Protein backbone atom coordinates (compact mmCIF):
# COMPACT_ATOMS: atom_id res chain seq x y z
CA UNK A 1 0.00 0.00 0.00
CA UNK A 2 1.41 3.32 -1.02
CA UNK A 3 1.36 6.01 1.63
CA UNK A 4 -0.45 9.11 0.46
CA UNK A 5 1.18 12.29 1.70
CA UNK A 6 -1.38 14.76 2.92
CA UNK A 7 -0.47 18.16 1.54
CA UNK A 8 -1.65 21.52 2.77
CA UNK A 9 -3.63 22.93 -0.17
CA UNK A 10 -2.33 26.07 -1.83
CA UNK A 11 -4.32 29.28 -1.99
CA UNK A 12 -5.01 29.59 -5.73
CA UNK A 13 -7.04 32.33 -7.45
CA UNK A 14 -9.82 31.65 -9.95
CA UNK A 15 -7.67 32.39 -13.00
CA UNK A 16 -4.89 30.13 -11.67
CA UNK A 17 -2.44 33.02 -11.88
CA UNK A 18 -1.15 32.71 -8.31
CA UNK A 19 -0.43 29.92 -5.88
CA UNK A 20 0.59 30.45 -2.24
CA UNK A 21 1.39 27.59 0.06
CA UNK A 22 2.75 26.79 3.50
CA UNK A 23 4.27 23.32 3.71
CA UNK A 24 5.92 20.98 6.18
CA UNK A 25 7.62 19.10 3.35
CA UNK A 26 10.87 19.87 1.52
CA UNK A 27 10.31 22.52 -1.17
CA UNK A 28 10.01 21.30 -4.75
CA UNK A 29 11.12 24.19 -7.00
CA UNK A 30 10.03 22.27 -10.09
CA UNK A 31 6.46 22.30 -8.79
CA UNK A 32 6.53 26.13 -8.63
CA UNK A 33 8.09 26.42 -12.09
CA UNK A 34 5.46 24.06 -13.50
CA UNK A 35 2.70 26.27 -12.06
CA UNK A 36 3.98 29.53 -13.56
CA UNK A 37 5.23 28.28 -16.93
CA UNK A 38 3.04 29.61 -19.76
CA UNK A 39 3.25 29.77 -23.57
CA UNK A 40 3.00 33.58 -23.40
CA UNK A 41 5.85 33.92 -20.91
CA UNK A 42 9.37 34.35 -22.26
CA UNK A 43 10.88 34.71 -18.79
CA UNK A 44 10.75 32.66 -15.62
CA UNK A 45 12.54 34.05 -12.55
CA UNK A 46 12.93 32.09 -9.33
CA UNK A 47 14.22 32.93 -5.88
CA UNK A 48 15.12 30.28 -3.34
CA UNK A 49 15.99 31.19 0.27
CA UNK A 50 18.36 28.65 1.82
CA UNK A 51 19.34 28.11 5.43
CA UNK A 52 22.87 29.38 6.01
CA UNK A 53 25.41 27.86 8.40
CA UNK A 54 26.39 31.17 10.00
CA UNK A 55 24.48 34.23 11.21
CA UNK A 56 25.94 37.24 13.06
CA UNK A 57 29.03 35.19 13.82
CA UNK A 58 27.07 32.25 15.23
CA UNK A 59 27.53 28.71 13.94
CA UNK A 60 24.00 27.75 12.98
CA UNK A 61 22.96 24.11 13.38
CA UNK A 62 19.42 24.29 11.98
CA UNK A 63 16.39 26.55 11.73
CA UNK A 64 12.89 25.94 13.04
CA UNK A 65 9.97 27.81 11.44
CA UNK A 66 6.44 28.42 12.64
CA UNK A 67 3.58 30.53 11.30
CA UNK A 68 0.17 31.91 12.17
CA UNK A 69 -1.74 29.35 10.12
CA UNK A 70 -4.37 30.92 7.93
CA UNK A 71 -3.09 34.48 8.21
CA UNK A 72 0.30 33.51 6.73
CA UNK A 73 -1.35 32.18 3.55
CA UNK A 74 -3.63 35.24 3.38
CA UNK A 75 -0.70 37.65 3.64
CA UNK A 76 1.21 35.71 1.00
CA UNK A 77 -1.81 35.85 -1.31
CA UNK A 78 -2.00 39.64 -0.82
CA UNK A 79 1.62 39.93 -1.96
CA UNK A 80 0.96 37.74 -5.01
CA UNK A 81 -2.11 39.77 -5.99
CA UNK A 82 -0.16 42.98 -5.51
CA UNK A 83 2.69 41.69 -7.72
CA UNK A 84 0.17 40.72 -10.43
CA UNK A 85 -1.26 44.24 -10.26
CA UNK A 86 2.01 46.17 -10.21
CA UNK A 87 3.95 44.35 -12.95
CA UNK A 88 2.93 42.80 -16.27
CA UNK A 89 3.65 39.31 -15.04
CA UNK A 90 1.87 36.16 -16.15
CA UNK A 91 1.86 33.99 -13.02
CA UNK A 92 3.41 33.82 -9.56
CA UNK A 93 3.89 30.95 -7.10
CA UNK A 94 5.15 31.22 -3.52
CA UNK A 95 5.87 28.55 -0.92
CA UNK A 96 7.29 28.72 2.61
CA UNK A 97 8.39 25.72 4.62
CA UNK A 98 7.66 25.19 8.34
CA UNK A 99 9.22 23.05 11.03
CA UNK A 100 12.82 21.94 11.06
CA UNK A 101 14.91 23.03 8.09
CA UNK A 102 18.48 21.79 7.97
CA UNK A 103 21.44 23.81 6.72
CA UNK A 104 21.56 24.06 2.93
CA UNK A 105 17.86 23.31 2.48
CA UNK A 106 15.30 25.69 1.01
CA UNK A 107 13.02 27.51 3.47
CA UNK A 108 11.22 29.68 0.91
CA UNK A 109 10.84 29.74 -2.87
CA UNK A 110 9.16 32.09 -5.35
CA UNK A 111 8.66 31.66 -9.10
CA UNK A 112 7.39 34.38 -11.44
CA UNK A 113 6.76 34.20 -15.18
CA UNK A 114 6.32 37.15 -17.53
CA UNK A 115 6.53 38.09 -21.18
CA UNK A 116 9.92 39.71 -20.69
CA UNK A 117 12.53 39.32 -17.97
CA UNK A 118 12.42 42.77 -16.29
CA UNK A 119 8.96 42.27 -14.81
CA UNK A 120 9.73 38.74 -13.59
CA UNK A 121 12.93 39.86 -11.83
CA UNK A 122 11.27 42.91 -10.26
CA UNK A 123 8.17 41.07 -9.08
CA UNK A 124 10.24 38.20 -7.67
CA UNK A 125 12.38 40.61 -5.62
CA UNK A 126 9.29 42.49 -4.47
CA UNK A 127 7.60 39.25 -3.38
CA UNK A 128 10.48 38.02 -1.20
CA UNK A 129 11.06 41.49 0.31
CA UNK A 130 7.38 41.81 1.22
CA UNK A 131 7.17 38.24 2.52
CA UNK A 132 10.04 38.88 4.92
CA UNK A 133 8.41 42.11 6.13
CA UNK A 134 4.74 41.20 6.54
CA UNK A 135 3.94 37.46 6.54
CA UNK A 136 3.50 36.11 10.09
CA UNK A 137 6.24 33.48 9.99
CA UNK A 138 9.00 33.20 12.58
CA UNK A 139 12.31 31.39 12.56
CA UNK A 140 14.19 30.12 15.54
CA UNK A 141 17.89 29.64 15.06
CA UNK A 142 19.55 26.76 16.87
CA UNK A 143 23.24 27.50 17.05
CA UNK A 144 26.33 26.28 18.89
CA UNK A 145 25.58 27.24 22.50
CA UNK A 146 21.96 28.33 22.34
CA UNK A 147 18.84 29.22 20.45
CA UNK A 148 17.31 32.49 19.32
CA UNK A 149 14.06 33.70 17.76
CA UNK A 150 15.21 35.84 14.86
CA UNK A 151 13.58 39.24 14.58
CA UNK A 152 12.90 39.87 18.25
CA UNK A 153 16.50 40.94 18.88
CA UNK A 154 16.50 43.64 16.20
CA UNK A 155 14.04 45.84 18.10
CA UNK A 156 15.49 48.07 20.77
CA UNK A 157 12.57 47.15 23.00
CA UNK A 158 12.99 43.46 22.26
CA UNK A 159 15.50 42.75 25.02
CA UNK A 160 12.82 41.05 27.04
CA UNK A 161 12.18 38.56 24.27
CA UNK A 162 15.88 38.10 23.80
CA UNK A 163 16.55 36.20 26.99
CA UNK A 164 16.48 32.87 25.17
CA UNK A 165 19.83 33.69 23.64
CA UNK A 166 22.74 31.87 25.13
CA UNK A 167 20.53 29.37 26.89
CA UNK A 168 22.33 26.05 26.89
CA UNK A 169 20.43 23.32 25.16
Amino acid at each position, binding site marked *: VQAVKSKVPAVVDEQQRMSCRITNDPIDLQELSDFVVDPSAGALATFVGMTRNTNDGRQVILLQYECYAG*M*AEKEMAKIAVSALTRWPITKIAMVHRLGRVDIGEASVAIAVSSGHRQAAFAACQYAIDQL*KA*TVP*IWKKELYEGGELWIGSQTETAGAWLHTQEGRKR
Partner: protein
Amino acid sequence: MRIKVRFFASLRERLGRSEVICEVPPHATVSMVWEVLLCEHPELAAIERSLAFAVAQEYVDKGHPLQDNDELAIIPPVSGG
Protein backbone atom coordinates in the same frame (compact mmCIF):
# COMPACT_ATOMS: atom_id res chain seq x y z
CA MET B 1 -17.44 39.74 25.68
CA ARG B 2 -14.94 36.99 25.12
CA ILE B 3 -11.75 37.48 23.09
CA LYS B 4 -9.29 34.71 22.29
CA VAL B 5 -5.75 36.11 22.38
CA ARG B 6 -3.01 34.15 20.62
CA PHE B 7 0.75 34.30 21.17
CA PHE B 8 3.46 33.17 18.78
CA ALA B 9 7.16 32.35 18.65
CA SER B 10 9.27 34.26 21.21
CA LEU B 11 6.17 35.66 22.92
CA ARG B 12 4.55 32.23 23.28
CA GLU B 13 7.70 30.74 24.76
CA ARG B 14 8.23 33.67 27.11
CA LEU B 15 4.64 33.59 28.41
CA GLY B 16 4.58 29.79 28.47
CA ARG B 17 1.25 29.53 26.65
CA SER B 18 -0.11 29.90 23.15
CA GLU B 19 -3.47 31.49 23.93
CA VAL B 20 -5.60 33.01 26.64
CA ILE B 21 -9.25 34.06 26.85
CA CYS B 22 -9.82 37.68 27.88
CA GLU B 23 -13.15 38.98 29.15
CA VAL B 24 -13.72 42.60 28.16
CA PRO B 25 -16.76 44.90 28.09
CA PRO B 26 -18.85 45.30 24.90
CA HIS B 27 -17.33 47.63 22.26
CA ALA B 28 -13.83 47.07 23.64
CA THR B 29 -10.87 47.82 21.37
CA VAL B 30 -7.56 46.02 20.88
CA SER B 31 -6.07 48.58 23.28
CA MET B 32 -8.37 47.49 26.09
CA VAL B 33 -7.41 43.83 25.70
CA TRP B 34 -3.78 44.89 25.66
CA GLU B 35 -4.31 46.74 28.97
CA VAL B 36 -5.78 43.57 30.48
CA LEU B 37 -2.73 41.61 29.31
CA LEU B 38 -0.40 44.26 30.75
CA CYS B 39 -2.01 43.90 34.16
CA GLU B 40 -1.17 40.21 34.11
CA HIS B 41 2.24 40.60 32.42
CA PRO B 42 3.62 44.10 33.16
CA GLU B 43 6.90 43.09 31.50
CA LEU B 44 5.10 43.20 28.13
CA ALA B 45 5.23 47.02 28.23
CA ALA B 46 8.93 46.92 27.36
CA ILE B 47 8.32 45.24 24.00
CA GLU B 48 5.07 46.94 23.04
CA ARG B 49 6.68 48.97 20.23
CA SER B 50 7.97 45.83 18.52
CA LEU B 51 4.59 44.10 18.38
CA ALA B 52 1.83 44.10 15.79
CA PHE B 53 -1.81 43.09 16.24
CA ALA B 54 -4.16 41.11 14.02
CA VAL B 55 -7.89 40.53 14.39
CA ALA B 56 -9.60 37.84 12.32
CA GLN B 57 -6.22 37.31 10.60
CA GLU B 58 -5.87 40.92 9.39
CA TYR B 59 -3.36 43.45 10.71
CA VAL B 60 -5.13 46.18 12.69
CA ASP B 61 -4.12 49.15 14.83
CA LYS B 62 -4.81 49.31 18.54
CA GLY B 63 -7.96 51.38 18.10
CA HIS B 64 -9.67 48.55 16.21
CA PRO B 65 -13.06 47.66 17.73
CA LEU B 66 -13.60 44.04 18.73
CA GLN B 67 -16.61 41.76 18.54
CA ASP B 68 -17.54 38.88 20.80
CA ASN B 69 -15.44 35.76 20.04
CA ASP B 70 -12.90 37.67 17.95
CA GLU B 71 -9.42 36.17 17.72
CA LEU B 72 -6.70 38.71 18.53
CA ALA B 73 -3.15 37.71 17.60
CA ILE B 74 -0.17 39.40 19.21
CA ILE B 75 2.53 39.29 16.55
CA PRO B 76 6.20 39.63 17.48
CA PRO B 77 8.62 40.82 14.76
CA VAL B 78 8.25 38.45 11.82
CA SER B 79 11.30 36.63 10.44
CA GLY B 80 10.22 34.45 7.55
CA GLY B 81 12.44 33.83 4.57
